[in-house]
C-alpha cells in the first residue's frame, strides 16, 4: 500500500501500483507484438485503437489542467496534480505512436499510390493526405502538447519550491493560450488519425466529438484514481464527497455534451441523406455494427445520464465508481466504433490484440503516470487557492 506524509504531502511509500502497471504494460505490449507476426493488419488496427483511446484520455487530462487554470477554478485544485501527472505521459504516447508509422499502408488507404492514381478525390486531397505531411503534422501536434504539458508541470512544481503565488497567474495566461493551440492541434489530429481512415468522408464537427469523449473519460479516470488513493487512505480528507459531487456534475454535463455533439453529427447527415456522408454511418450500422452503435447510445449516454441526474447518486462513491468504469469502457467502444468499421467488412471483429494493446499501452501510461505523480507532492501545497479547494462544499 502506498503511503503519504500528511504534512508535506510527499509519498513515503510508492506501493506496488507502478510495478503492477509496468508489468501489465510490458506483458500487453509483448503479446501484442507477437500478434503482429501472426496478423499485421489486425495488429495495426488494434494498436491504433488502443493508442487513440489512451491519447484522447491523456489529452483530456491536459485540457482539464488548462481549463481549471484558465477559469481560475477553485474546487479542482486538490485534484490538479493527478491531471498534471497524466499529461506528463505524452512523451510515452509519442513512443507508442511511432509503431503506427510502420503501418500507415495497412491503416490508411490514401497511402496506396495505385488507389490514389484512380481516385479523383484522393488525388485532390493528396497535398494534405500524404505520408510526409502526415508525419510532420504529428510531430507538430506532439511538440505542442508535450510543450504545454511540460510548461504547466514545471510552473506548478516550481510553486512547491518557491511558494510564489505569481506562478498561478502565469499558469492562467499559459493555459488561455494553450487552450487555443490545443483546440486546433487536437482537431487536426482527430482528422488525421481517425477521420482519414475513411478518406472520402468528412465532418466539420469530428474534432469536437473526439475531444469531448477524451475529456469526459479523463475525468472518469480521475474519479477512479482518487477513489483508489482513498482506499489507501491518501487524500481522503482533501478530496471530499463534495469534490466527487462536482466530478459527477462534470461527468453529467459532458455525457450530455458528448451526446449532443454525436447526435448533431448523426442527425444532420441522416437528414440531408447525401451518399458521400451517409456511407460512414451505414458502415456503423450494417453487418451487426448497429449493436455497437446502440451500445454507445445506451452505455455512453442513457445510463450515465439517468444515473447522474440524481443528487444522491452523484455523492455516492460506489455509484460514481460504477459510472466512471462504464464511461471508460464506453470510450473504448467509441474509439473502436470510430476505427474498426474501416477494417472489418463482414461484421464486428474484436481481436484479442485489442485487449492486449489497450492493456499494454495503458499499463505503460499508468506506470509513468504513477511515477510522475508519486515523485512530487500529491497536491499543489502552495497554490493560493488550495485552502479554499479543500474547504470546498457544494
Amino acid at each position: 500500500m502506498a503511503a503519504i506524509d500528511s504534512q508535506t504531502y510527499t509519498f513515503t511509500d510508492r506501493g506496488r501500483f507502478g510495478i503492477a502497471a509496468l508489468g501489465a504494460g510490458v506483458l500487453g505490449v509483448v503479446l501484442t507484438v507477437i500478434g503482429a507476426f501472426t496478423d499485421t493488419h489486425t495488429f495495426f488496427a488494434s494498436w491504433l485503437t488502443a493508442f487513440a483511446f489512451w491519447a484522447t484520455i491523456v489529452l483530456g487530462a491536459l485540457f482539464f489542467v488548462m481549463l481549471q487554470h484558465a477559469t481560475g477554478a477553485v474546487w479542482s485544485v486538490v485534484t490538479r496534480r493527478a491531471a498534471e501527472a497524466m499529461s506528463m505521459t505524452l512523451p510515452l504516447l509519442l513512443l507508442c505512436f511511432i509503431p503506427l508509422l510502420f503501418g500507415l499502408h495497412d491503416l490508411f488507404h490514401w497511402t496506396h499510390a495505385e488507389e490514389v492514381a484512380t481516385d479523383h478525390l484522393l488525388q485532390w486531397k493528396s497535398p494534405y493526405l500524404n505520408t510526409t505531411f502526415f508525419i510532420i503534422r504529428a510531430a507538430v501536434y506532439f511538440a505542442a502538447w508535450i510543450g504545454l504539458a511540460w510548461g504547466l508541470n514545471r510552473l506548478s512544481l516550481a510553486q512547491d519550491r518557491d511558494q510564489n503565488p505569481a506562478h498561478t497567474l502565469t499558469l492562467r495566461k499559459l493555459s488561455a493560450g494553450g487552450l487555443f493551440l490545443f483546440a486546433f492541434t487536437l482537431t487536426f489530429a482527430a482528422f488525421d488519425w481517425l477521420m482519414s481512415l475513411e478518406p472520402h468522408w468528412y465532418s466539420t464537427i469530428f474534432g469536437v466529438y473526439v475531444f469531448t469523449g477524451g475529456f469526459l473519460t479523463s475525468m472518469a479516470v480521475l474519479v477512479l484514481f482518487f477513489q483508489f488513493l482513498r482506499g489507501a487512505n491518501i487524500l481522503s480528507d482533501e478530496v471530499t464527497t463534495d469534490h466527487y459531487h462536482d466530478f459527477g456534475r462534470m461527468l453529467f454535463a459532458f455525457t450530455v455534451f458528448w451526446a449532443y455533439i454525436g447526435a448533431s453529427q448523426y442527425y444532420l447527415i441522416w437528414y440531408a441523406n447525401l451518399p458521400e456522408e451517409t456511407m460512414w454511418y451505414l458502415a456503423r450500422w450494417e453487418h451487426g455494427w448497429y449493436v455497437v452503435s446502440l451500445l454507445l447510445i445506451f452505455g455512453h449516454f442513457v445510463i450515465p445520464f439517468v444515473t447522474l441526474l440524481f443528487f444522491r447518486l452523484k455523492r455516492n462513491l460506489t455509484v460514481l465508481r460504477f459510472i466512471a468504469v462504464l464511461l471508460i469502457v464506453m470510450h473504448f467502444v467509441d474509439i473502436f466504433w470510430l476505427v474498426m468499421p474501416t477494417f472489418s467488412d463482414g461484421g464486428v471483429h474484436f481481436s484479442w490484440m485489442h485487449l492486449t494493446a489497450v492493456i499494454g499501452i495503458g499499463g505503460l501510461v499508468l506506470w509513468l503516470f504513477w511515477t510522475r505523480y508519486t515523485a512530487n507532492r500529491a497536491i499543489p501545497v502552495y497554490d493560493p487557492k488550495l485552502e479554499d479547494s479543500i474547504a470546498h462544499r457544494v
Partner: protein
Amino acid sequence: MRTVTDSHRQDSWDIEGAGTLAVDPKELREPLVEGKPDLRDVTETVSGVVESKPTRLWYATVTLTGGLAAWGILTIIYTTMTGIGVWGNNQPVGWAWDITNFVFWIGIGHAGTLISAILFLFRQKWRTAINRAAEAMTIFAVICALIFPVIHTGRPWVAVYWLLPLPNQMEMWVNFRSPLLWDVFAVSTYFAVSLMFWFVGLVPDFATLRNRAKNRIVKAVWTFVSLGWTGANRHWHRYEKAYLILAGISTPLVLSVHTIVSFDFAVSVLPGWHTTIFPPYFVAGAIFSGFGMVLTLMILARKLLNLEQFITVKHIENMNKVLMATGLMVGYAYGIEFFIAWYSGNPFERFAFINRAFGPYSWAYWTMVTCNVFIPQLFWFRKIRRNLAITWVISIFVNIGMWFERFVIIATSLHRDFLPSSWGYFIPTWVDVSIFAGTVGLFLTMFLLFAKYIPVLAISEVKGILPGAQPSHSHH
C-alpha cells in the same frame, strides 16, 4: 503547511510566506463589489433608480428609440398591406434580412440564458450583478426576433394557423419534419421559461419596492406582482429551490434554441449551410453576440444609473473573457469549415466558401471576420479588457460582426447556388432597413423602460455576495 488566516473567502486572500514575490491578491481573486456598501446601500441604490423621476436624458432617449420603433411598426404595416415584394428578397435569395434579423435577435438573448442558467450552475458569483439585465435582454430580444418570421408569412393574422399544429377538419397539419416548426416550439419554450425565470428572480425585489412604496397605486402594483412575498425563511427556501430547478430547465435551452435555428440551414443540402459543426458553432456565436449586446448596454447603464460599485471593472473583464472565448470558438468554426470545404473535394462546397471570401459578398465576409475574430483578440491584453471605452467600442464591433455572420451565411449560400443561370445579388430596400431599425428601436425602448421601472440589479442576490454575507470557512 501554510495556514490561512483570512476570515473570508471572497474578499481577501492572505498569502503567507510569499515575501517579496507576493502578487496583488486582487489579481488572484478580485472582490465582486467595490467599496464597502452595506445592505441598505444596495437597496437604496437599486430602488432609488426605480423610485426617482426619470431624467431628461431618459425622456430624450426614449423618444428617439420609441420613434424608431414606431417607424418600424409603420413599415411593417406597409409591408403587410403591400406584400413581401417591398423587401429585397427575390429568387434566388428568398431568405435575406428577415431571417438574418431573426437569428441575430435570438442570438442576443443567449447571454441572458447562459448567465442565468449555466453560470449559476457553475457557481460564478459575478453573474449576480448582471443577470437581471441580461435576462431582460433575452426577453426583449426574443420579442424582436419573433416579429420577423411572423411578418414574413405575409399574412400574420393567419400565422397561428400555419405555425402551430392546430387540429382541423381538413386534417391539414404543419410539417413536423421541418426545423422551421421546431423553431416555433424551441423559441416559444425559450421565451416562456426565460420569462418565468426572470419573474421568479424579481419577486423578492418587487416585495422590497412594495415595502418602500409611498404612493398607494404604486404600492398596489408592487403588491400584486410580489405575490405576497414576506421574506420568510420558508419563502426563501422555496425560492432557492425553484431558482435551481429553473436554472436546470434553462440549461438545455441555451443549447437547444440555437441548435434548432442552425438546423434551419444545416438540414438542407446547400453548400455552406449543410455542415455538421453548425449546432455548437451557432450556440457559441449566439453567446458571443449576446455578451456583446450586454456589454454595449451595461457599460452605459452602470454609468448612467451610478451602479459602478456593483457592476465593477471585474464584471466587464469577465464578460470580455467570455467574449474572447466564444469569439475564438466562432473563429475555430470559420477555419474548420473552410478547411473541410477544401478537404471534402466537393467542388460546390469549395466554391461556396471561396465565393464567400472572394465573391461579390466578400466585403460582408471580411467585415464579419474582422469584427468577430480579429478585433476581439485585443482582449488578450488585460489593459484592454479593463478599459471601458475600448470595450464598449469592441462590443459594438461584435454586434455588427454577428449580424453580418448571419447575413453572410444566408445570402452567400443562396445567391449563387448550383445553377449559374439563376445567380443573383441581394440588395436590401429601404423597408428592409426600416424594419430592422424599428426592432432596434423597440429593443432599446423596452430596455430603457426596464432600466427605469424595474430593479436592474437583483437586490437580494447582490446582498448575498457582499463581504461578510457568506459563512466564512473554519479557521485552521
